[in-house]
């Protein structure tokens, strides 16, 4: 066991305590790459945007607010502009059958369901040789006549093998957001009148 540890110690990248800096996550969410198509396979058509929602409130409920997990003695922080960060996640519903309008300050267009979005969890756990991203988004109605409130989670793992810490931690987080958005889309009947 000691011999294994000794070998492992030689294999890891060198870093001293003084070199450690927080890893700041990317400013916006990016959709994970779609699986490569097999020869002759056609890309699926875009999903029509039939579910109309207006985002009238965005909240960051994560606790702690400036901490998202760690990689040994280095920790991850969210980007500085949290509103833009969460907004970019919600915009991902646009490719999942939602017509999303942001109306935090303005009036809600007719036919759009006013919805509030909260980011309850955004976390990175270094485990099993890679990063687990975990995201929980909560959607709640701002229309008293059509009340609902539901949380949607996603967990996604990306190996650290042959990759950078920030690259793979962002991949893991984006994958988790995508899964959370997929679950919202699967549950669209809760929000959509039609």
């Amino acid at each position: 066991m000691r011999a294994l540890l000794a070998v492992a110690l030689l294999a890891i990248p060198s870093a001293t305590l003084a070199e450690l800096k927080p890893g700041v996550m990317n400013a916006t969410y990016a959709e994970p790459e779609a699986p490569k198509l097999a020869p002759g396979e056609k890309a699926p058509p875009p999903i029509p945007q039939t579910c109309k929602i207006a985002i009238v409130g965005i909240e960051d409920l994560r606790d702690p607010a400036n901490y998202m997990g760690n990689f040994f003695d280095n920790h991850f922080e969210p980007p500085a502009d949290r509103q833009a960060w969460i907004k970019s996640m919600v915009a991902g519903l646009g490719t999942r059958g939602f017509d999303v309008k942001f109306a935090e300050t303005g009036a809600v267009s007719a036919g759009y369901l006013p919805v509030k979005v909260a980011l309850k969890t955004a976390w990175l756990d270094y485990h099993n040789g890679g990063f687990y991203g975990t995201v929980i988004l909560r959607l709640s109605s701002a229309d008293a006549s059509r009340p609902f409130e539901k949380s949607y989670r996603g967990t996604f793992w990306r190996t650290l093998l042959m990759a950078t810490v920030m690259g793979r931690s962002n991949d893991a987080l984006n994958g988790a957001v995508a899964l959370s958005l997929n679950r919202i889309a699967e549950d669209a009947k809760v929000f959509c009148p039609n």
Partner: protein
Amino acid sequence: MPIGFAMRVASAVCLAVPTAVLAFPEETIPEANRNPADPISLHVIVPQVEIRASINAAGGGGGGSESIVGALIVGAMESSRTKKAEDKAEQIRMAMEGFDADAIVKREVARAFSGINWINGSKASFAKDPTLWGKMAVLDAGSAPQMASLKITYEMTPDLSGVGVSAVVELVDKVNPRAKKPEKRFLPERVAFVKGAHTITSLAPDSSGKPIDSVAAWTANDGKLLKQTLIESIAKVADLSARAMQLRTTDMAAFNDKTLPKMSIGWHRGRIIEGADALATPETSNGIVRTSATVTPGKPGVLIWAGYFAHTRTLALGAGQ
């Protein structure tokens, strides 16, 4: 040769030499530090937001899966196997939605440490950040001469048939003349005391011989059995952590008594100090060394001393559902 590489070579050599050559923390907390008038502060850390599933071939459960060796082994595994295991683990995570492990940890740690007047358990701080820098900020912000950081983690065993909760308690001096930089107070050879506590709860085999669907058992009724097991396991490691901090040299001598039988719990191996009567198959052992023994379902389990506490118990299906 770059300095960084040279340091790693030196560290690797240190790992290869016998442990007695290196300086280590005290085995027990000295009496002088057990002072109710100037109590040790307690800082609790839970560095995760949902249950981990160890999908690794290294085995063992409990702690250790953050290790470099584990990472190297797991990194080399084929991804299809990981995906298959992940799909099962996801069912468990879904069932555990809304389970607030942090709240359970806070409650159980406060309870377990409430009877120790030289540790300020009732005013324990809580954080998610296990990094050296996070702990250092808490230590320096407080007025206590020593801080005990108690890190608690929880995860499924690699085959998902068991759940493990681990704790590591580390006592750090606020002022340490041997540490030339503030962060060096947290180096393994500079901390005043460090001990671990682990508990692993497994599902008992089906008496009919049929394989058990562990995932179905844990996740039935919105994860009722897993949630209850986690609550009990967190309480157990909180108790063992408090007990570890109160150990005296007489306890150590009793635990290391060479007449006590040995047992392995995952990769923890040590002498049985409690619950030897819970072993299901003592007749299969030679009476001195018991390895791979099973624990009778429903019993409180077996506690071993391996330089730290490791506990295991077995649940009979239907008992907790």
